[in-house]
């Protein structure tokens, strides 16, 4: 028996291997636009403030976005497969609560970290279980669990705060992992995870399957892809990384209040959308998300250096997001009406 798939007969058509390389298509790629935005942010800030390019200042700036950026990596994969997890910030709160109680009970840093990760993992698995079993859209499920998780934190803590942590745990969030270049642990973890996520999404078979699910979930099932199992795993990882975010954040600020990480889910989704992941699924890259993290992080930092109030920064970032979503649609609409 000969192999049916390899036996090629002459085609009637000649088909090129890849698209003809054109400068315009490369420049119009979303990643290229993000690189230009990043360059503009860096140049603008350097001109405006002499303190911007200082390595220690920049290292401190990464504190403000690294935890969110880690969570944005998995959010990118969820949005890619047409799902969303709005409960991530609430999971941070619940994990942080557990870490806080463990700290009060006098446990060491290792136990605190494991607790934070475990609580996050369980919350994420619960989300995934509900989404895959009920068939209810994840936006609905995770709005529900968002209230549930943060509600538990609020009920158990009221207006109290938890502040008893071992010093070796606090050091994780408050000192540098490397002294030169100055690198906080959270930023280092983000970089390592970004590389892992990029390799996974763009180079492995399982990563490719995520694109299939996002493009057409029904065809994905027909193609032998275990759609529900993959969804469950993604939600579980989302919870786990929210737990990691809680570990890092709690160590950094040294205090747990029920409003911890409030509103983070929207900051994280902003990073993903600005990174070029299509909310309709099937399109996106980790490179784009990483670039968007830097654009947003450095823009926020630069504006803060210029003493722009936080509320105004939010307005500006909101505008940036709207423009970034509208621009590609308008550009595409003009260059190729077909």
């Amino acid at each position, binding site marked *: *028996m*000969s*192999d*049916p*798939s*390899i*036996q*090629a*007969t*002459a*085609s*009637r*058509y000649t*088909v*090129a*291997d*890849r*698209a*003809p390389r054109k400068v315009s298509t490369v420049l119009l790629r979303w990643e290229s636009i993000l690189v230009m935005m990043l360059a503009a942010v860096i140049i603008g800030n350097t001109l405006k403030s002499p303190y911007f390019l200082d390595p220690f200042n920049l290292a401190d700036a990464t504190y403000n976005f690294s935890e969110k950026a880690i969570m944005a990596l998995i959010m990118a994969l969820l949005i890619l497969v047409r799902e969303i997890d709005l409960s991530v910030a609430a999971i941070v709160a619940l994990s942080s609560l557990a870490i806080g109680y463990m700290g009060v009970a006098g446990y060491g840093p290792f136990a605190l970290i494991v607790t934070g990760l475990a609580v996050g993992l369980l919350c994420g698995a619960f989300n995934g279980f509900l989404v895959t079993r009920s068939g209810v859209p994840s936006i609905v499920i995770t709005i529900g669990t968002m209230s549930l998780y943060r509600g538990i934190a609020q009920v158990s803590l009221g207006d109290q705060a938890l502040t008893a942590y071992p010093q070796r745990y606090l050091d994780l969030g408050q000192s540098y992992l490397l002294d030169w270049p100055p690198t906080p642990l959270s930023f280092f973890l983000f970089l390592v995870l970004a590389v892992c996520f990029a*390799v996974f999404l763009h*180079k*492995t*078979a399982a990563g*490719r*399957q995520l*694109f*299939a699910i*996002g*493009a*057409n979930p*029904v*065809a*994905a*099932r*027909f*193609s*032998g*892809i*275990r759609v529900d199992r993959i969804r469950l795993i993604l939600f579980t990882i989302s919870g786990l990384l929210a737990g990691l975010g809680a570990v890092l954040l709690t160590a950094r600020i040294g205090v747990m209040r029920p409003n911890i990480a409030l509103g983070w889910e929207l900051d994280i989704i902003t990073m993903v959308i600005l990174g070029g992941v*299509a909310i309709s699924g*099937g*399109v996106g890259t980790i490179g784009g998300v990483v670039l968007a993290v830097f654009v947003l992080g450095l823009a926020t930092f630069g504006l803060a250096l210029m003493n722009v109030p936080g509320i105004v920064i939010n307005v500006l970032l909101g505008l940036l997001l709207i423009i970034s979503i509208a621009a590609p649609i308008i550009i595409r609409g003009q260059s*190729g*009406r*077909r």
Partner: protein
Amino acid sequence: MTLEELAAVTTSQPVLSLSHVSKSFPGVRALHDVSFALYPGQVTALIGENGAGKSTIVKILTGIYVPDEGHINVGGKVQHFSSPRDSWAAGIAAIHQETVMFDELSVAENIFMGHMPGGRLIDWRETKSRARELLARIEADFDADAPLKTLSVAQKHMVEITRALSHDASVIIMDEPTAALSRHEIDELFRIVAQLKAEGRSIIFISHKFDEIFRLSDRWVCLRDGEKVGEGMTSDVSEPDLVRLMVGRPIDQVFPKRDIPIGDTILEVKGLTNATEFADISFTLRKGEILGLYGLVGAGRSEVMQCVFGMSQATRGTVMMEGKALTIHEPIDAIRAGISYVPEDRQDQGAFLPLGIRENITMASLAGHVKSFLLSGASERTATHALGGRLSVKAAHWEQVLGELSGGNQQKVVIAKWLATKPKIIILDEPTKGIDVGSKAAVHDFIGELAEEGLAVILVSSELPEIMGLSDRVIVMHEGRIAAQFERGKGTGAAAWSAEAIVAAATGGPLQEHAA
């Protein structure tokens, strides 16, 4: 017949004419210098292979695409359609291949969507009464209040026709309107078309079925690779002539039944039952065999095959492959065992439109392209070249996004995806549905080749000539059960290998009822 003679036959002025229309997309020339005219009270068949440019013409006429060159002339005036609304206003309406309507709304709302009677507030009474009036004109058997989702595909077509009438459209485009219809529904549609003709409307009819073209059309226009290669009166042309024009080469439409030695039993299904859709299905399949599965729409053929493939679970029954019991919970189990299923709805169930051709072709066989945990681009490209080339996929390049290809080429890519899994058993669900005669012959050839290579093929089809031409054995399903089995060239009377007997079994009635 020359064009002068043609003009003499058609005495009246054209309703609509295209002159020297061209349209290109990146890397593909979709239309080149196409001109033709439509006359009142005539049905013009637009014929051509998939990707010949028929859909592009429809999209230009309905204002979705703007032509690069040339112009459209309606009622003596040059028109520029920059949106579907302009095209409506000029009296052109289209009934689409895949009906695009609002399932949650009522029939009347669907008919008048975009031009509801009344001023700022909708005049519901007027809307309903006018809808009823229009529905009565085409003798529709459903009410204007009915929610669209309760209607059959044929009834939805009637809603679209009514919508066209509500615009008083002078040109009605029907893009494969019969693809999903039963025989009776097709007759009904043709009756309406005759009525529209009598009212002096001009109709563009697109179909791959020659019997329909000859039964319905007055004139024909043939496209090949984006160019017009001929036109004329339908009464002056024969089917082989049209086929030759379309394909550019003569096509043998007789099914070449290959003489393939049939091997051992590879698949044995026993008593397969599912709570609602089918019951007690038993059959065997052997290597090198082509097993036809025939039945009317809704007989449960696809449901049985999807169950074998693991898309749904059986409540009872066993599946044995090569003598071993198979437990299939999910499609991946079936794929690993060597079973492939090419779904009928290749758009929705097979195609990943935002992804590239290469990514589509390798999606069900990614494990074969993994080298030390990572995907190998080179290995993927080799497979893509081999399969894409074998199925004659027409594209600018292999990384092109699938959504940019024509419908027929998308289908080829989906079939390529399934061949890439190197199956032992391949289940083809309506493999030639909606594809043109040239590609159809290629698919038929190809099914023969697959069997010759030792694959066992299950061919699910509603086309009797195809089933009888290709299969070694035919199983007929009726209302979820196996009604009869036929073996090529064997049996007598009601069990004989004959079209009459097979159709009789499929409809569940005695022979004589179906002689007509």
